[in-house]
């Protein structure tokens, strides 16, 4: 039952995140902030793909581990990009400062949900 509660809480947080990002774009009639959602949605993809690429190789192969590290590098890149993109847009007067703050908070909530969901399911698979 604890798992059910976690799912409910996570879905609420995800909904709040999407609400913030959509408000940040719709309130100011400027839909550039939706790029943050795209960034955070594709942020876990390199890690996932590279993890799949590693599992097909041998365990002690050193080449597979660098593929995993490439995935981690790209994930770190994309996560910071999700914060840096609204900041650059606001600095260059493409979006307003409140829209920047709302999209950053909303994006972090969305990404936090994705990450906690992945960790939750990984824990389930181990048992």
């Amino acid at each position, binding site marked *: 039952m604890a798992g059910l509660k976690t799912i409910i809480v996570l879905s609420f947080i995800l909904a709040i995140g999407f609400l913030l990002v959509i408000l940040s774009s719709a309130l100011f009639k400027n839909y550039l902030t939706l790029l943050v959602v795209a960034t955070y949605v594709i942020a876990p993809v390199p890690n996932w793909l590279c993890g799949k690429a590693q599992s097909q190789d041998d365990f002690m192969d050193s080449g597979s581990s660098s593929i995993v590290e490439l995935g981690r590098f790209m994930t770190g890149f994309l996560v910071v*990009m999700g914060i840096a993109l609204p900041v650059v847009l606001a600095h260059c007067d493409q979006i307003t400062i409140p829209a920047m703050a709302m999209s950053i908070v909303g994006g972090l909530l969305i990404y936090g949900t994705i990450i906690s969901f992945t960790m939750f399911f990984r824990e389930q698979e181990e048992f």
Partner: protein
Amino acid sequence: MIGNGDDMEGNRLFKFPKPQWLNSANTRNAGVYLSGALFSIALFVMIDATVYSNGRLNGSDLHLNFVDWIPSIFSFLGMLVINSIDKTRLSGDTFAYSGDGVAWKAKVVLFMGFAAMAGGLAGGVTVMVLKYVTEGATGMSLWFGVANLLANALVMLSCVVLWVSQNMEDDYTYNLAL
């Protein structure tokens, strides 16, 4: 050979022992993530300067063009070269399979990578001084030049962090393998 790490602790040069967390897997992963984050900051500092200088907020006559990106491109190529090299090839004499001067070739390619990266940093300083400081740029116009230098320094820092975490990983797998 399990006590390999302990032998290295005994032969340590410094008074203080190597902290235990330096060899953990989590530190390596955090280092790689941090490296990606630093690279992202570097890229977006450059993008911010470019977009701002070509947008309507820019009051000065100075604009970024392709010339300002050349040092960053060199830094990025250097980082790519440095981190593409298999680090175990550098100590070629300890491995039987790496004959025919593989270690020498690796060192030459590595030198070219470091040269590209240092050239990128020097180019960043050059562009900042020649294009902005000598023109008497102030405020946001000066930021265009400082952003160039900052982006190249951040790419270098990102490369250093990635290199250090990869070397940490080598120690870790070595201890695991023996």
